[in-house]
Structure formats: structure tokens, C-alpha cells
């Protein structure tokens, strides 16, 4: 871990000894368009994939959080994508998103999901939503189990409707779990790699930061510069996590 900070100050290509360059790597990144674009691509992916995934997961979890016959089976349908690997899923979604694939044909669309700058990022986001919803459903369900059922019954007796029950009972009680979900979503969003590699190989504005690091470090053998990106990434994630936890804790009081 400390070594990554150390390496970020060097020009290093594995074979020759590292050469000290000070902050040059960081300065280069500051002005590198490709790095800026990859950063933008990561932020876009995070928002376009994880915001809908988390909201959808919350809805599904609220729906599943009752005892009904067959709900175990329904859960399975949502959880199954979580138990699959990103690369295999992305291979399948290449076909789903094919111009004559399942998505376009079933909805009567004519979108070039993976081969145009305007829609490729949405195609990747759709894949990620499908893959990740179940993960957050599991976590929300675990959080909802801590909400005592009697509270709802008491509120119903007092004449509270479904919405106000959600607003005044569920929402405050799932706040801690929402903080955890938010942090996990940010981290998972920035870890994105496989879907982008398989679906577009980073073309059409889908080269996320991780793919940028990979290409910088291993295709162009610039370990020092890649380390500098990793350092920035780490600082960003640490700040985001802390800030999120802080905000949620404050509104808790």
C-alpha cells in the first residue's frame, strides 16, 4: 500500500530501475485528456448504473419484505445474477444488446447499444444494473429485518397510509444500512472493469479509470504513472466514504 505512494513519484517500467521524477506523474495526469475522460466515464457509470440499481433494489426489497407464499422463489430470480461472474455476464449481454438482440427485438428498438458514443455507456450501465440489483436487495432485506413489524401494525391502526408508513418508519430505520449501501455502491462503481473490457474494450467513452490504469501500467509499461492514478483513486474513495458516513450520521441525530 505504501509502496504505491512511493512508486507514484517515479518513472518505472519494471525492467530498468525506477527513476525519481517527483510530482511529474501527477502533473501529467492533471493535463491528460484521456485521464480526465476516464474519470468522467467512471463517474457516469457510477451514477447511471448504481443509482437506478440501488433504488430498484430498495423497491424490490420493500416488496419482498413480507411473508408470502412463493416469495423464496421470487427472491431466487433476483439473486441469481449476483452469483455469476462479470465476464460471463458481459459475454451474454453482448448478445442481449446486439442490434438484433433480445433488447432491441423485444422492445422494437433500433439502438446500436455497444457501437455508438451516445448509447454504449448506457448499454454497459444496463448490464451492471441487471448484475448488481440482487446484491443490494440482499443487503436491504437484511436491514429491513431489523424493523419491528409491530411498528407497522401500530401505525396502520393509527390510520397511517402506505406512504407515510414508509416515510416515517421505514426510512429512518434503514438509514444506517443506506449509508453502508451508498459507500459500497461508490466502491463497486469505481472497481468496474470486466464489463467495459468485454462489452466495448473501453471505446465509445467507456474507458473507466480502472481500465485506464490497466492500459497505462501494462500496455504502455508506465508503472509510476499508473501508481499515481491509483493514489488519486484511493484518496478519492477514502474521502467519499468518510463524507458519506458523516452526512448520514449527522442527519441521524
Amino acid at each position, binding site marked *: 500500500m505504501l509502496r504505491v505512494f512511493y512508486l507514484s513519484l517515479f518513472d518505472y517500467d519494471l525492467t530498468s530501475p525506477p527513476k525519481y521524477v517527483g510530482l511529474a506523474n501527477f502533473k501529467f495526469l492533471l493535463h491528460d485528456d484521456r485521464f480526465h475522460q476516464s474519470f468522467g466515464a467512471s463517474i457516469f457509470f457510477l451514477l447511471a448504473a448504481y443509482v437506478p440499481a440501488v433504488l430498484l433494489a430498495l423497491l424490490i426489497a420493500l416488496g419482498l419484505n413480507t411473508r408470502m407464499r412463493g416469495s423464496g422463489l421470487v427472491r*431466487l430470480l433476483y439473486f441469481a445474477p449476483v452469483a455469476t461472474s462479470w465476464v460471463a455476464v458481459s459475454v451474454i449481454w453482448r448478445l442481449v444488446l446486439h442490434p438484433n438482440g433480445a433488447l432491441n427485438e423485444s422492445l422494437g428498438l433500433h439502438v446500436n447499444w455497444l457501437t455508438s458514443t451516445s448509447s454504449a455507456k448506457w448499454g454497459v450501465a444496463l448490464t451492471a444494473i441487471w448484475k448488481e440489483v440482487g446484491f443490494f436487495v*440482499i443487503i436491504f432485506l*437484511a436491514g429491513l429485518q431489523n424493523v419491528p413489524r409491530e411498528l407497522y401494525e401500530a401505525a396502520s391502526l393509527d390510520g397511517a397510509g402506505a406512504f407515510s408508513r414508509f416515510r416515517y418508519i421505514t426510512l429512518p430505520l434503514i438509514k444506517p444500512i443506506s449509508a453502508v449501501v451508498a459507500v459500497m455502491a461508490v466502491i463497486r462503481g469505481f472497481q468496474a472493469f470486466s464489463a467495459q473490457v468485454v462489452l466495448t474494450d473501453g471505446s465509445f467513452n467507456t474507458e473507466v479509470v480502472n481500465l485506464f490504469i490497466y492500459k497505462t501500467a501494462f500496455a504502455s509499461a508506465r508503472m509510476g504513472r499508473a501508481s499515481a492514478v491509483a493514489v488519486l483513486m484511493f484518496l478519492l474513495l477514502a474521502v467519499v466514504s468518510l463524507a458519506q458516513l458523516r452526512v448520514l450520521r449527522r442527519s441521524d441525530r
Partner: protein
Amino acid sequence: MSARQRTFARFLVLLAGGLIFASVFAYAVLSAVKPPDEILGTKLWPSEWRWSNFTLPFKTAPFARYYLNSVVVGVSVTLLNVITCTLAGYSFAKFDYRGRNVLFFLVLATLMIPLEVIYVPLYALVFKLGWVNSFAGLIIPSGTSAFGIFLMRQSMESVPDELIDAARIDGAGELRILRSVVAPMMVSPMAALALFIFMANWDSHLWPLLVASDDAHRTLPVGLAAMQANNLGSSGIPTMMAAAILALLPTLVLFLVLQRKFVEGVTMTAGIK
């Protein structure tokens, strides 16, 4: 609408949504067995079921090799993790020594750091050790996990000290105590850990891509991605669908059989419970 009808309506909506989710799997299987000219377009049902398409990945690429590599690496990494995390967890939970809390804090701190941040220097280290394109490079760096150590420590706190002291008085060595007294009580967390690690490893793509780029060491995710890059045309679709389905089958089956443990594992990553 009565409350009962409302519950039923909600059930139907959730079921429909779930079926849409699962339809992607069905679509993949149908596409894998269709004749090539029926895959794209509106024809959902194959005119002819070509189950033999599932042999295509083995004929056109070293798919069996990738598969075997994934199994070998997955099982080794899982076993190593269960052993190292149990040992470390036992030490952190049941022994008092100088620096224990500092050490444990360091372990927890690494929990926060995603692999992506450290893999450049990690690769440089593995490169120096000559482990590039070797199973050692694939397995050893993943041999333990902060999450696993944390989980095993938390679980072992519940083992009563009296039980361990009694075994010590009876003259049992520490490893013997761990094996015969503590481990049998830890079967459940160990199983959850094993399942979690195996699944994570099966999905692992970035690290194997760095350290194992030759065919002899490629794991499934790396191999599959390479096959995809070679099969971009529509004639390669049956091969790729068959390969993807075969690749996701083991973890999907594990999930179906061990649902509860799986949910437990995911929940633990969120630190609830």
C-alpha cells in the same frame, strides 16, 4: 381491494420483474442451442435444438484448460483462506500479546483498500519473484483476506475461554486445541467464508489477467474475455453463449444449493449482524 388481494397483486408484480431478470439466462441458453441463422432476430424458439453446440468452446479454444485452471486456483485460494484466516482469527481473538490491537487495526485498514489501488506495486513484486505466468502468482497473493480474518475473529470471540483453558490443562497443544475444540464450533462461519472466497475468486478477472496471460495459466474470466475478442462476428455467438453458460454454472449451482450461506456471506460484507 382487500389486504389479501393487494398482497397477491404485489406478488405478481414482483414475480413478473423477477422473470424479466431471469429471462436473460433463458435467452442465453436458447441462443446457445439455436442454429446460427436463428440467433439474431425475432425467432425465440429454436427450430432445432443443437445441444452439441456446448462442445464448441472445447474445440475452438483451450476452454477445458481455462476451466481446470479456474477450479485449481479457486479451490487452492479457498483452502488457503480458510486456514490462514482461522489461524489469524484465533490468534487475534484468544491470545494476549504486545501489539495485537495495532496489528488488528492494520488488518482492518486494508479492508478499506480495493485491490485496484495496490495491484501495480503487487505486480512489480510478483514480477521480481518470477511468478508471472505461474500458479504461485495466481494463488499466493490471494491466500488470505482482511475480511476473512475479521470474520473469523468475530466468530471466535464467542468460544468460551474456559473450554480452551480446560483443553490446555489436559495438555493439548495450541494447534490441537484449534483443530479439535475451536474449529468444530466454527464450521458455519468457515463454510460461509469458503463459499464467499470461492465465488469471488471465480469472478476475479483483473489480477489473473495481469499475472497469467499465457494459455497454460489463464483462468476462465481471462480465457473467456480472450475468446470473446477472437469471436466478434455473429458466427462465434453459439460458441460464446455455450462458453459463458458453462463458465457461470458452478457458482450458480453453488448458490442454488447453498442459498442461505450465500446470503449470509453477502450480508457479512456489509458488516451487518
